[in-house]
Structures are given as structure tokens and as C-alpha cells.
């Protein structure tokens, strides 16, 4: 069984002069391989904690799982076959942790119970429990993000309102002219309202596009920096619907305010500076 382990041992690179067929194999994480300038087929010397050095051949590279709790760690990682690892560590029959992947439909509770029965002292935990235990920090961060989003959206709504008020100030004369030539308050209201609502809708779409574009850039950059497939920023459909809904409701509300503002005054008053 392959086991992932923080490589606490030193790795020494050797030229491939050994008869590689006789050497045990290991897998190297791509960042480790990149940092040590190793490639598949190279031979490496690994010094164990208790045993002497052993040579391994790099059988392949792997990418570290997309786990936010380990993405910033700069350690070297390798995967050994369990017997090789135990031999290196001098701890035969000793395993700290391993993962059992179940087939779809398998009874998880039954498997947990069976492992507990077979391995005395072992504690079989569902992946959700482990994930929950390690992701509390990210939950807190997510709450901060939500608070920031709320502040941003409120700020954007106030900004939109100011923009509309300024725009209305510019258009008082237009409104007065329309009233003078016989355009009804109803038409003027609908005109102002639909223009404002359309502006808000366009702003929402533009905001979402900026969000999508921004998250693409952020992900591309940090995936490159950390060599991971993690998504650092994500505009989910649920988020898009939420933002779209808020944008629309804000736009409609501002549209009503703007429309009323335009029709509430007489054309004479609208003309006054």
C-alpha cells in the first residue's frame, strides 16, 4: 500500500548507473522533483531515521492533493511502498494513518466497525470528520469573506445611488423639457426607472464578468505559485445568482427613487439650478 509521508529524511541524487530494475520505486511530488531537479528514471538515495541509506528509482511524479491546509507547505514529499517505508523508518508493522477508499454504495459504518475490530486501538473516521477538524480556519476566513462581500455590496449600492443622483442632476433640464413638450409623468418615470434599472443590470453583469475574470487571473497566478489545482477564488452559480439578485433589487429600488425624483418636481422646479 502506498503511503504519503512528509519526507523527514534526506534525499541524495545519484546518477542512474545502478541496475534500476533491482531498486525499489518511489513517487515524487512534482514540486519536490522540480526543486531537486529530478525526473522519472532518476535514482535517489534516501537516508532513513534509523537505517542507513537506500537507493530508490523515481517511478513517477504526482501532484499534491488540492488541500488548502497544506498548499503553502514547502516540504519535500515522496510516496513509498509501505514495506520500503517501514524498513527506512525501522518501524516494521507500524502505520500511523492510512486511507481506505470505498466503492460507491459500500456501507461506511460497517467498514469502520470492521477496521476497529481488526486493528485494536485504531480510530476509523469518515473523511468529513477529518475535513471538518482541519478546516475550521477556513470557515473563519469564509466568514470574513462574507462580511467583506456584504460591505462591498452595500458600498456598491451607495455608489450606484450617488451615481444616479448625480446623473439625475445632469438630466433635470432634459426632464423639464420632456414635461414641457407634454411627456407625462408616467412616461418620464418609466423612462428614468428603466434606464436606471438597465444601468444596474448592466453593472451587475459587468461585475460578475469582472468577478469571473478576476478569479481566473487569481487562480492562474496562485496555482502557478503553489503548484496546485486548488481554486483560490470562485464565482459559483449560487453566488452569481445572489449577486445578480442583489444587483437587480438594488437597481430596481434606485430606479424607483430616481423615477420619483424626476417626476415629483414641476418642470419649472427642474429647470432651477
Amino acid at each position, binding site marked *: 500500500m502506498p503511503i504519503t509521508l512528509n519526507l523527514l529524511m534526506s534525499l541524495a541524487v545519484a546518477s542512474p548507473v545502478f541496475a534500476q530494475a533491482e531498486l525499489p520505486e518511489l513517487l515524487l511530488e512534482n514540486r519536490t522533483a522540480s526543486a531537486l531537479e529530478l525526473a522519472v528514471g532518476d535514482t535517489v538515495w534516501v537516508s532513513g531515521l534509523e537505517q542507513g541509506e537506500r537507493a530508490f528509482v523515481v517511478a513517477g511524479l504526482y501532484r499534491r492533493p488540492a488541500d488548502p491546509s497544506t498548499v503553502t507547505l514547502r516540504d519535500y514529499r515522496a510516496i513509498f511502498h509501505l514495506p520500503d517505508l517501514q524498513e527506512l523508518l525501522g518501524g516494521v508493522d507500524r502505520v500511523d494513518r492510512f486511507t481506505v477508499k470505498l466503492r460507491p454504495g459500500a456501507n461506511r459504518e460497517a467498514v469502520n466497525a470492521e477496521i476497529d475490530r481488526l486493528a485494536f486501538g485504531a480510530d476509523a473516521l469518515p473523511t468529513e470528520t477529518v475535513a471538518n477538524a482541519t478546516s475550521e480556519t477556513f470557515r473563519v476566513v469564509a466568514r470574513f469573506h462574507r462580511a467583506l462581500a456584504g460591505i462591498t455590496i452595500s458600498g456598491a449600492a451607495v455608489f450606484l445611488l450617488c451615481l444616479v443622483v448625480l446623473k439625475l442632476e445632469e438630466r433635470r433640464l432634459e426632464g423639464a423639457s420632456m*414635461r414641457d413638450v*407634454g*411627456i*407625462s*409623468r408616467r412616461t418620464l418615470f418609466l423612462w428614468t426607472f428603466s434606464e436606471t434599472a438597465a444601468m444596474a443590470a448592466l453593472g451587475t453583469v459587468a461585475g460578475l464578468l469582472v468577478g469571473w475574470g478576476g478569479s481566473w487571473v487569481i487562480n492562474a497566478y496562485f496555482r502557478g505559485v503553489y503548484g496546485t489545482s486548488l481554486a483560490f477564488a470562485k464565482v459559483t452559480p449560487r453566488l452569481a445568482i445572489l449577486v445578480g439578485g442583489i444587483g437587480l433589487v438594488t437597481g430596481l429600488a434606485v430606479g424607483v427613487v430616481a423615477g420619483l425624483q424626476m417626476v415629483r418636481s414641476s418642470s*419649472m422646479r427642474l429647470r432651477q439650478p
Partner: protein
Amino acid sequence: MRGRGRVAEARDLYRTYLRGSTEVEAVRGVSLEIDARDYLAVLGPSGSGKSTLLNLLGGIDRPTAGRVELLGHDTTALSDRRLTRLRLEKVGFVFQRFHLLPALTAAENVELPMAEAAMAKAERRRRVAELLDYVGLSHRLDHRPGELSGGEMQRVAIARALANRPALILADEPTGELDRKTGAEIAELFRRLNADGTTLVVVTHDLGLAEAATRVRQMRDGALLPEEAA
């Protein structure tokens, strides 16, 4: 009343504004009749109350005292809604600064009052073409106000004023923003409009525009001076 039919009539009009705590009488005791096919020019210095009088005649503003009858309707008694409808259907306005909507093309600006009056689209298009041709702008249909000269914008505004075949056109300093030559062209257009049967009231400083009128009234300090022969 003259034989041609009364279009508008003002009786003992007063309009007082509050400027700070001071009352300003912009119009004082004005009485005036306007008959069909009249071309009345109201001359007077700035601040003499000409524009206020025009606003009162067209139902844009309401008098402090007195009454205005427009085509038999007492505008002082009409609701805002009915007064707006009356303006839409029976009165055309031409302003000194044109007051065109910058986002709309010349054709759309002219079409706007017709659309508000629920005229059929095909009829609107036909009339827009006809009106812009009348004012000499058939080649500028799709231009926005920002792409037109001052004279052209005023022509579009005149075409817009004519959109719903109004009984009365009210023009407030229509040549005020134009150079002498363009002003003369607009004066000629007003003369032609009147010759074609349109009733016009123009308030102006422009003597050239007043020369084309069939009636001239002078206004001083909110009051009309006795009528002069045209």
C-alpha cells in the same frame, strides 16, 4: 374675438415668485388674446417677464391670479395630467437652448411627442420624414444633437414642436443661441410656418424675428404695453 377663432386668451394674469423672502411680480395684470394664424412677437428686455408669460400661456407654469384659456380650456382649472395632455396635443414649444434629448437622433426627438400621443408607428415615421424635410433636415434624420449645428438643432426642435399638429407654437428666444445668419434662417422658417397657417407666439430680443410677426407687443416690468401695428 376675431373671426379666425380664439386659440388662447389670458385675463388679468399675475405671477409672483418668492426670491428669498422678497416677492417678485414677474407678470402683472397681463391680458392678451391670440387668434388662429396670429404671429405674435413679445419684445422686451431681460427680466421683463416675457418667458414667464409664455410659460403661463402654455400651461408650464400656473398664474398666481387671473386665468388662461387655451382652446376653450381654462388651464388654471385643469389637473396636471390633463394640462400635460393638452400641451402634448395642442401646444408646441421651442426653447432658446433647443432642449433636445442628446441620446436620441433628430428623427427620434421629433418622434417622441407622437409616440407619447400614441400615434401609429408607420404614421409617425411618415410624419417625422415630412417634418424634417419641411425644416430642411431630411439628410440629418439619424444624427444626434451633438452632431448638429445650433441652427440645425433649433430646426429639429421646431419640427418636434410641430409633431402633433399643435394649434399654437410658443417660442422662447428661439434665435438667442444662434449667430445672425442662422437666426435669420430660423426667422424665415417661422414666417413660412405662419404663412402655412401655424399660430405663433415668440418672445424675443431679436428684431429680425419680430419683423416677421403680424403682431408685436412690448413688455416692461411684467406688464404689456399697448399693442402696436405690425
